[in-house]
């Protein structure tokens, strides 16, 4: 057992983890944040994607103790405080980019990370950024569209703020 300190969706968390415990299990079972999915468990499907210090990582391929001191964002962290959806989540709903939904949290987090540093990505850039996220329902077209919608929504939000 080790004690670690992390920031999870902006909040501090200190607690015990087993030495051999993966980050995805810590997130799901210790923190109860079940939006992060366990898929292939060998880093190939992207369902367990979380943002660590802002960049997408496969949480099944990281030991929880090695995340000590990091800031972690899960899909729950994107939702607004009043429970309403963030623009990128709304865009996935509007574009019908969800079939079974298992890959969706990972897809959205990868897309969110992309839009943070590249607000107007090309389709090719979206493909590269999401290339580590598999969808067994093959909703890829709708996912591309959702990311483009999100990009537009965010641009509109910036304009309306100004």
């Amino acid at each position: 057992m080790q004690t670690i300190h992390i920031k999870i969706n902006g909040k501090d968390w200190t607690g015990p983890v087993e030495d051999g415990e993966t980050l995805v299990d810590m997130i799901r079972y210790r923190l109860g944040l079940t939006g992060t999915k366990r898929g292939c468990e060998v880093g190939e499907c992207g369902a367990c994607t979380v943002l660590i210090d802002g960049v997408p990582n496969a949480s099944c391929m990281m030991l929880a103790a090695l995340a000590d001191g990091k800031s972690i964002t899960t899909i729950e962290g994107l939702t607004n405080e009043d429970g309403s959806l963030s623009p990128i989540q709304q865009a996935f709903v509007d574009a019908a980019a969800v079939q079974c939904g298992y890959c969706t949290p990972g897809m959205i987090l990868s897309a969110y990370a992309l839009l943070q540093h590249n607000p107007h990505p090309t389709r090719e850039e979206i493909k590269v950024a999401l290339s580590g996220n598999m969808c067994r329902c093959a909703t890829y077209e709708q996912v591309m569209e959702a990311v483009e919608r999100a990009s537009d929504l965010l641009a509109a939000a910036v304009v309306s703020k100004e």
Partner: protein
Amino acid sequence: MLYSVKELYRPETLEDALRYLAEYPDARPIAGGTDVLVSMRKKKPEDVRLVGLQNLQELRGIRRREDGVVEIGAYNTFTDLANCPIIAESVPMLRTAALAMGGPQIQNAATIGGNVCNGATSADSAPALFARDAVLVLRSAQGERRVPITEFYDGPGRVKRQSGEILVTIELPPCQADSYGDCYIKFSTRKAMDLALIGCAAACGVAKDGTIAQVGIALGVAAPTPIRAAEAEAFLKGKRLTEDMLEQVGELALATAKPRDSWRASKAYREQIIKTLARRAVRAAYEMAGGAL
């Protein structure tokens, strides 16, 4: 997933890590974990000791020394490599290789040191490092050892890292010729999340008169370990590249290779790819160095 880990030790300094490894020689260093954890799934559960390298500043950073040697700390992720201006300028094919490896999540976690020490013939960093005569700097409690990467791979998934050792730095000697060019081509079925069926790197130093002064050609997945295509290199040295010579380069590269049949690709297919990639990589490297065919 709960891995059978007896202890995950998280040292703050290289000295402390080496001291722990001296005490427990069977402990496994873990960096990004993308290979170490997968290998622990395959084996029967046994309590292993892991040494987390995350906090060791000695393994970080990429520098160009005054003598022109580029020092790459072993704990640089593939994303670090892809974003580093020194890499883009002095060994651009390593940037290509970094972006061809896995997908974003894996590139953000996996390190070049781990890629080397995992010993896979399909390691995306290997052809570039072989072609550039990289030297590995390993440290243990006993001291430092320097090994050319071309002598480090020992067989499929095996390297000559001794127990108690940590790969600290990868050194790339500078190209001494008037101009330099390189190229890495990964041939795989998918663009992302796939292993190379064949990988080929060529590094070319070209003199002002267009003759090849320095050349390294390396292949991944063409043999049980990454290899250099020494015959093709010897053939090219001191000459100006022509279309006719490229044919010969492909044949000579194939002569060095020992590809095998696997469910991923047949031997015959791989042989064809080796010839084609060797020709294309050498041509691209030569042209990038300012040579004209």
